């Protein structure tokens, strides 16, 4: 074991065993916010959705916006992890675990939002008892459930060797229940060649399975809207439009999370500036794709200007929703893209700033996809009004707190960086080690190269990152 790996292991195990005062304060704060949201929800359960600003003409609002937002964030974990793993991109290794944690946390929170939105949450099981496959809600249920299960497996498989390390290394430094947990979850992992082989096969298979499931998730989320006859929703490109938007906001969320963890866990050595720049490149690319879809969407309705489309566009561009609309274009798209593209800001600081802006911007974007199409008059009446109440604000903010809590919980239980995968790379800096099966082996063989230790996880140079 070389020094680089020992440093990483120490840094990864430290948060598992030591809880700083800052962390405890943060958790307390998050619990307070989440508790406040729970209180708001309890009021809503007691008095019904009458406590929200929703009404007969705008029956969906903040909760559905938040649903789309969180399900969107859940895409980045898999996108970064599975896509980069399949294409054998080496620099992904330090960041995938955290991205996968985010997928799980955001899926759980996202899946809660429709439940909060239901008029009769206690009847949720009716969806199983009487479910009609003709309804897009069933598509969502099937798709999101598969994605959650798949993501859990996909998170768990590469975790096994690390859990085994926790089991073996942490010993008395963690309470007994966690030792038992590690022992159980490690599932008898002894790092035998047979186990390694089986694990790698499992991971590769999950990579291939999880990608189409991920794409299906936001596609069917968009179809909740696109399967209606509403102006603004009634669109064929909604599927891919939403998927790209999901990846765009998801990568931004991952970058934001990385910045926070880098500071809190002192991971500068592994979450390097280069990682931010690489992820920033991905973010820039999806941002441009997203522009393409958004542009295509608005141009195709804006060119023909059917009366209802015209009314919607006018309300978006110069009407009641103008400030959110232009806020997104500026803060959610233009400024971030410039930050990501222009050389002076192509650094960690610039990328993180862009990501934070995108996080906020994309929430707003979802809001003006969901609400104006509902508020648009269907009959000869005026634009409907929707004024979210403090209950809705509280629950939405609490959802973010709950997301952060879940993430913090996962990061407290398991190493935030994939130790065993990193060890393979870090081994390259040490005297030669015996050959080990590697995830990227296939790709390497195909390209005619012998497996070589990838150094591209960190400052491995431009080309090292692209293809291992």
């Amino acid at each position, binding site marked *: 074991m070389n020094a680089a790996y020992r440093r990483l292991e120490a840094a990864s195990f430290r948060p598992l065993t030591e809880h700083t005062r800052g962390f405890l304060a943060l958790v307390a704060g998050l619990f307070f916010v989440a508790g406040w949201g729970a209180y708001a929800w309890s009021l809503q359960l007691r008095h*019904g959705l*009458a406590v929200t600003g929703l009404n007969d003409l705008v029956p969906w609002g903040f909760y559905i916006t938040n649903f789309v937002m969180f399900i969107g964030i859940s895409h980045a974990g898999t996108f970064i992890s599975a896509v980069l793993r399949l294409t054998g991109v080496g620099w992904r290794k330090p960041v995938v675990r955290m991205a996968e944690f985010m997928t799980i946390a955001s899926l759980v929170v996202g899946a809660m939002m429709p439940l909060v939105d239901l*008029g009769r949450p206690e009847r949720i099981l009716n969806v199983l008892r009487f479910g*009609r496959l003709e*309804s897009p*809600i069933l598509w969502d249920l099937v798709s999101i459930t598969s994605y959650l299960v798949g993501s859990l497996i996909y998170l768990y498989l590469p975790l096994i060797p690390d859990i085994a390390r926790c089991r073996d290394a942490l010993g008395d430094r963690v309470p007994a229940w966690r030792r038992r947990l590690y022992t159980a979850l490690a599932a008898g992992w002894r790092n035998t060649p047979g186990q390694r082989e089986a694990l790698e096969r499992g991971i590769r298979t999950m990579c291939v399975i999880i990608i189409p499931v991920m794409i299906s998730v936001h596609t069917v989320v968009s179809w909740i809207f696109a*399967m209606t006859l509403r102006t603004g929703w009634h669109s064929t490109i909604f599927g891919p439009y939403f998927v790209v938007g999901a990846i765009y906001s998801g990568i931004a969320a991952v970058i934001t999370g990385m910045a926070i963890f880098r500071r809190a866990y002192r991971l500068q050595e592994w979450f390097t500036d280069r990682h931010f720049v690489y992820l920033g490149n991905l973010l820039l690319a999806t941002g441009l794709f997203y522009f393409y879809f958004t542009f295509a969407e608005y141009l195709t309705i804006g060119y023909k200007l059917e009366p209802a489309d015209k009314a919607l566009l006018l309300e978006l561009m110069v009407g009641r929703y103008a400030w959110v609309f232009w806020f997104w274009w500026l803060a959610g798209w233009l400024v971030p893209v410039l930050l990501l593209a222009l050389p002076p800001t192509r650094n960690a600081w610039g990328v993180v700033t862009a990501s934070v802006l995108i996080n906020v911007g994309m929430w707003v974007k979802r809001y003006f996809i969901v609400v104006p199409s509902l508020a648009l008059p269907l*009959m000869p009446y005026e634009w409907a009004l929707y004024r979210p109440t403090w209950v809705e604000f509280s629950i939405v903010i609490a959802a973010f707190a709950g997301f952060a809590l879940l993430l913090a919980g996962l990061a407290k239980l398991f190493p935030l960086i994939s130790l065993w995968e990193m060890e393979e790379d870090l081994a390259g800096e040490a005297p030669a080690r015996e050959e080990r099966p590697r995830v990227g082996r296939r790709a390497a063989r195909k390209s005619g190269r012998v497996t070589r230790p990838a150094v591209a996880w960190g400052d491995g140079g431009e080309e090292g990152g692209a293809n291992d």
Partner: protein
Amino acid sequence: MGLTRRDILRWLATAGAGTAAAAWAKGGAAGLLALVREARAAAEGRPEGSAHSGEGMARDAAETRQWVMVVDLARCEGCRTLDRPPQCTVACTAEHHVPFDQEWIKVYEADDHGHHYFLPTPCMQCEKAPCVDVCPVGASYHAENGIVLIDHQRCIGCRFCMAACPYAARHFIWGDPPELPQTALVKYSPEYPLPYRRGTVVKCMFCAHRAREGRLPACVEGCPMGALYFGDYETDLASNGAEVVRLSRLLQERHAYRLKEKLGTRPRAWYLPGHGEAFLGQTPGDGAGVQGGAG
């Protein structure tokens, strides 16, 4: 046409179902007269209810109906000359104890290229109903007679149907509905879904409960202008409470149209074009306008 209220009742009720269809099959106006004779005989000669042999048959016969609504825009002037709120809405609200400020038949004031008119809108009971399509639990469904009903014991309150309805016909029980003594003992049925349940969707149901009893919808009876007709595709008859007309002829002669036809929802509410001209400036209720329809 000399048809009494009771005749209409006969037609709506089960006794007329088979006969009327047969009569119409035989031919046109003569058929209507036959129906009237038949109905008279039934009304005079036999005691109430003996024309059919009980509950089961009543249901079967009722299910052969395909209810529709026809709105004569030439006769509707939003109850302006009465200086009262739209009476169809008022009647509906009273009949159903419609909670909160909902209006199940909403009368819009529309301006179309300078034409000013009033547009009463019940639920269209679309044949290809987006609300039914999207419901995840089958709580919104088509009854045999074409009416779109909601099972309030199954509805989960997702409001997808509200987002999907192109006519803004659906309403939600957002909070606790007021408890009314007169509805406390009503037995729930999707046709008359009292008492209302918080967190579920409600809307106009073409007064399915009244049709079952052979009565016209409350809004049709409540309209002082006779602007609302309740009809049936099967027997091809329609009535506004004052007259019985042949449905297909009424629709054809008055160039009936449906709202948002191009969406393909095939609504069961038809509109006869006009701008309230049949009544403007007249005293409603003097009968002048009512007789002038396309019988």
